[in-house]
């Protein structure tokens, strides 16, 4: 358990700028591997998309080469067309493939046909293109959504030990920015390389047909590119990592400042907070600047490499064209219908076609290196995603955990010890037994461990030693969900959600009827003030003029716990913000309601304790007194008696009084 705390602290530290680079090429590939399950739900659509793309590319390869050739060679130079070329643009092959070349009128006709065929094709393809892009976005977003859901599930499964350390802004950043990288992953590590590499090989083959020496030149660009890719990978990753961490910190700072804005304003600390924000914002920008600079520098350098290759290659080809040298693959070109008989030489058509092919070759080389740069950022983002997903929750269901059916006997704390940090024990060997039908008051100085004691019952944390038993069975043998379904709690801080009053009361039981919501509100004495709200139960909390006082929030929070209708109810300082009269009413209602249940009341108020039939006095994590409040108050020098006296403002013993409250 302590290991987990240490891990969580380390994790939280990551968001504060702890770690730099932990990635290697192997790990990057592993990330890809780990993302594959995310694709499961989109397997079909993804395969369909890839297939459609491949078909389109294949359909296009032949026309594209031919269109360029027809334009340069046929239209501009007046050379003959091949049969295929003529047929493609809807012309009679016999008229346009005569070896003597084309007349001016024929060239113009070829031009018209060529242009309209291309235009028709483009117009027809536009909707298909839009459809494919939209489809692709849909798939990628689905994958991203899958990952976000996994992350949110993990965040919720992690115990409070984790959340005590974790910054909200960091979670937001990881969920939004880091997880989005998964949409790129498929593209960057899978689709794009697949497409680019096959295009490169295809181009290389074509260039080989023009001239093998030029194909070799294209290959010669690789060694320097590999070197640059290797040399820059780590600095880029480190840069991207810092940029992500800095932006995540910035998000945290905004969130934290806004969450505490009231206090900041009341204490005139706006100036220093703005400074803190401004510093963090600058830091984030500086980190992003550094990362992007490396990335752009890398791109410029790699472009020089491929640019040089391109300039030399084109220069060489220009020389070949000037002398109309024969193509290396002359026969192949002619037999494939790319050239008319006897025209398989370096003419303008093949020269321009070559320039396009060779340009494409260098372009794909550059693009692959670009992708490599992009991979560094994608991997960094995903690494941060998996850091979160890899965290183990310290509270998991045991193997063979069973759901709780009912609670019929009682709850027992058996020698329970617990500590947040290893140094101090927050709870030390707590041992007591509560039979069903009891109301137990837990009293003691602030910070003595009362709230922690109750958190263990919900398994927000697990005890370090000892156990808690329901009807004699360790609660760790039950599933966590069923446990939490059987225990309800009204927290000390009355947290309400941005929803209607009714939905807030219904929070734990989403399908509860309006009738039950009303009943719960009645028990919690919330009916009166809710009725006065502009729209009653349907009032949206947080809207204009519906600010609730703390006491009102407290009662909604109690109603929420009551509605859950569980055998165990915990009220943490339920009445701290209630006036005496309301408190009395609430407690009386509760006492009636609580028959055949167990109610724990954490409280300081004597007037609340009086409604209990057991009192546990906790001090420094130890149970120092336990018993009937009427007996404890009799005890000379008893801890409970001392507390009661101070509370009542009586230096001497007071008369215990339950006569008027009528216990259930």
């Amino acid at each position: 358990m302590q290991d987990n705390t240490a891990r969580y602290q380390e994790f939280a530290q990551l968001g504060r700028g702890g770690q730099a680079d932990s990635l290697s090429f192997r790990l990057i590939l592993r990330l890809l591997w780990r993302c594959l399950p995310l694709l499961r739900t989109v397997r079909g659509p993804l395969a369909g998309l890839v297939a459609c793309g491949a078909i389109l590319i294949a359909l296009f390869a032949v026309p594209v080469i031919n269109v360029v050739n027809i334009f340069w060679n046929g239209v501009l130079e007046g050379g003959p067309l091949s049969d295929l070329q003529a047929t493609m643009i809807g012309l009679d092959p016999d008229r346009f493939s005569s070896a003597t070349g084309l007349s001016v009128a024929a060239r113009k006709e070829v031009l018209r046909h060529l242009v309209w065929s291309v235009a028709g094709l483009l117009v027809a393809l536009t909707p298909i293109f839009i459809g494919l892009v939209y489809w692709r976005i849909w798939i990628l977003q689905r994958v991203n959504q899958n990952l976000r859901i996994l992350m949110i599930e993990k965040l919720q499964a992690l115990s409070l030990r984790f959340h005590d350390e974790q910054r909200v802004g960091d979670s937001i950043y990881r969920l939004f920015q880091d997880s989005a990288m998964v949409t790129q992953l498929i593209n960057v590590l899978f689709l794009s390389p697949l497409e680019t590499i096959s295009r490169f090989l295809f181009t290389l083959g074509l260039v080989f047909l023009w001239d093998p020496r030029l194909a070799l030149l294209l290959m010669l660009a690789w060694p320097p590119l590999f070197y640059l890719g290797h040399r820059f990978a780590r600095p880029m990753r480190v840069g991207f990592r810092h940029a992500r961490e800095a932006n995540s910190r910035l998000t945290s700072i905004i969130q934290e400042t806004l969450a505490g804005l009231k206090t900041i304003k009341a204490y005139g600390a706006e100036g220093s907070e703005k400074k803190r924000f401004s510093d963090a914002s600058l830091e984030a920008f500086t980190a992003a600047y550094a990362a992007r600079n490396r990335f752009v520098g890398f791109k410029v350098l790699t472009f020089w490499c491929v640019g040089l290759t391109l300039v030399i290659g084109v220069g060489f080809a220009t020389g070949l064209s000037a002398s109309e040298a024969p193509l290396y693959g002359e026969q192949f070109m002619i037999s494939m219908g790319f050239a008319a008989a006897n025209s398989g030489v370096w003419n303008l058509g093949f020269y321009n076609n070559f320039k396009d092919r060779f340009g494409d070759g260098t372009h794909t080389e550059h693009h692959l290196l670009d992708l490599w740069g992009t991979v560094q950022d994608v991997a960094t983002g995903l690494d941060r995603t998996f850091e979160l997903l890899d965290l183990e929750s310290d509270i998991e269901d045991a193997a063979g955990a069973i759901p709780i059916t009912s609670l019929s006997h009682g709850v027992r704390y058996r020698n329970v010890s617990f500590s947040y940090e290893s140094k101090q024990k927050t709870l030390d060997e707590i041992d007591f037994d509560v039979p069903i039908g009891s109301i137990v008051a837990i009293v003691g100085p602030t910070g003595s461990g009362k709230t922690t004691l109750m958190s263990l019952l919900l398994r927000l944390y697990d005890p370090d030693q000892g156990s808690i038993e329901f009807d004699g069975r360790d609660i760790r043998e039950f599933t966590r969900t069923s446990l939490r379904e059987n225990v309800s709690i009204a927290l000390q801080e009355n947290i309400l959600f941005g929803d209607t009053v009714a939905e807030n009361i219904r929070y734990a039981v989403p399908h509860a009827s309006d009738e039950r919501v009303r009943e719960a509100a009645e028990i919690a004495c919330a009916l009166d003030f809710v009725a006065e709200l502009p729209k009653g139960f349907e009032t949206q909390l947080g809207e204009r003029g519906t600010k609730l006082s703390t006491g009102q929030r407290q009662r909604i929070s109690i109603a929420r716990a009551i509605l859950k209708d569980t055998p165990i109810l915990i009220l943490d300082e339920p009445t701290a913000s209630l006036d005496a009269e309301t408190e009395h009413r609430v407690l009386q209602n509760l006492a009636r309601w609580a028959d055949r249940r167990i109610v724990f009341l954490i409280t300081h108020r004597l007037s609340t304790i009086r409604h209990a039939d057991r009192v546990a006095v906790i001090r420094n994590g130890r149970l120092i007194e336990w018993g009937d409040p009427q007996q404890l108050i009799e005890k000379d020098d008893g801890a409970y008696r001392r507390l009661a006296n101070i509370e009542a403002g009586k230096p001497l013993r007071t008369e215990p009084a339950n006569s008027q409250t009528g216990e259930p």
Partner: protein
Amino acid sequence: MPNSFQEDEKQSARDAARTIGRALRYIGPFRRDFGIKLTLLLLSFIPMMLLPWPTKILVDHVIRGIPFGEEPRPYPFFLEPLIQAASELSPTAVLVWTIAAQFCLLVGIGAFGVASRERNSANGDGIPQGWDTATRTENEANSGFSLVGGLFGLLDYRFTMRLTQKLNHHYRTHLFGRISSLPMTSLDDGRIGDAVFRVMYDTTSITQACYALVLTPLTSPLYILLSIWVLGLVYGWVSPIVFAGLAFLLVAFIPTLPLAGFQRLYASRSRQAGAKTTSTIEESMSNVLAVQSLGGEARELDRFDTDSANSFRQYRLKVLVDLITYSIAAVFGGGLVIYVFFHVGDGIVDGLYSPGDFAVLLPFFVGIASASIDLGALWIRLQGDSTGLNRVFFLMDAASERDSESDRALGPLQEKLELQAVSFAYETGRPTLEGINLTARSGQVIALAGPAGAGKTTIAQLIPRFINPSHGRVLIDGQNIADYSLDSLRSQISFVFQETSLFDATVEDNIRLGHPEATESEICEAARLAGASDFIESLPDGYQTRLGRGGGKLSVGQRQRIAIARALVRNTPILILDEPTSALDPETEQRLVSALREASRTRLVIVIAHRLSTIREADEILFVEEGRIVERGNHPHLMNRPNGRYRQYVNMQTLGTDSPTSPTTP
């Protein structure tokens, strides 16, 4: 007051124009930088005018072997000296020299006219982003761009990125500052996630709009004119190529115009859905204790699933509108491109142009066309930004509590604080306070008591002007506090809230929040008075212990004591505590109450409390019920009133211990 944080989804074209125009005002402080960026852009035009020519030389003179001077169209005058020199060389030498020239262009500007798609190699494309507003705009916040690559492009790119960041930093900080001066209650409804989204992701719209508004209208026409001039030198002034290029202005403008409304609608929905998702995460992470202990995980997951899926959907629809918009323009534009191919093709067939001219005409046409598109599409491109701007301006315009602030400083409280006939009502008109009169003197402890929801907190909030009275006045030493600066007022009041908020910093820094210059011994003393020193010293690192999120590692009572220490260390003439002792055990409370007594000797202490043991010690108790002060006096005085409300209230609390009167039963 932006309580609902909800602006209109539908923006009319006129609203959008006004919003966008307003963005221009924000350029002010960065005029010089924009000047430099403009110069860099104009400088990059020069090489772009030179780029197409080497290809023409290669095609016409090296491959086709046309001798220099016999080409159908002459070279522009600025190339004459080079052509002159080239005409004396052999074709091979021309080839070698051209390659050398292209190499220089490659290093300098990363382009050499053979492969035009490589031209923008140095811009920021390639930084990975997702398919949602948040990641796209995060990218925008750091984006740089340059028309060229190479060394010059790198310089240009870096400068632009810095400028983008400077602008974004400036406006983020500005917006953040505005948010922190919003009225106290603005963020009560937990719209934190939404505000985070605005600061982080909506502010980038300002930068984007500024670039579009300043750079495009200035550079595009210049680029067009320069291209026309160069083309005119060679191909005559009235070239159909130029008209075709310019026609793109209309092609980009007219067909897209009807879609501007959709662009705004979907961009705005996409931003709102993104902000809502942020709020959902923020809320469920901040309240994870409540979520886990109430078993709300499934519900929260469901909420997130819905919101997140919706934000993806809205973004997808926005992209679809973009795609359709640009495709419509592209189909029309395609017609123009076809026309150009006809024209040039016919020209070459007729011998008007040489094949090499094609390599010149096409890039110039593309240049003119894309500059025209930039101009023509200016409006449609700004639509998405206008929705972001709208969200930013909405917050900037929200009434801030400092808007009509006086700069007169209020002197520290010497004698007394008065509330004269003060009433307060929330906007719905439900009166919360009515006719409150009170006088409190320095040296006193005043207690506000009464049932929950009676208006005690509201009374206290009037004093530091967290809220302003609807009627009546609040006076300090006879001066109306509304006439003085907020800083001078708040610097003499320490307010401890009912719900304490601690920050993820050390204990010491948390106490120091309101008094940055406090010495260590002052901090320890305040902690001791607040009854916090014992537990602080037992923490692993004492005063240097980091508290974790929201002070989550401490119990509520411990947090409350740190908040009280924070107030005490400021040593202000007025101390207001809203239920400071609700979570304290009786012993700690007693110590605190006597500390407050002690503190009140030199100042005014106002306490809101339910606990008798806290109230009893006050010099004057004001019993508040339904927004009115119904009884006032000290404890014995009020207890002596038969059937007094206060007496009933006390009896209820100490029921059975010292009560002769039985309480009103529910």
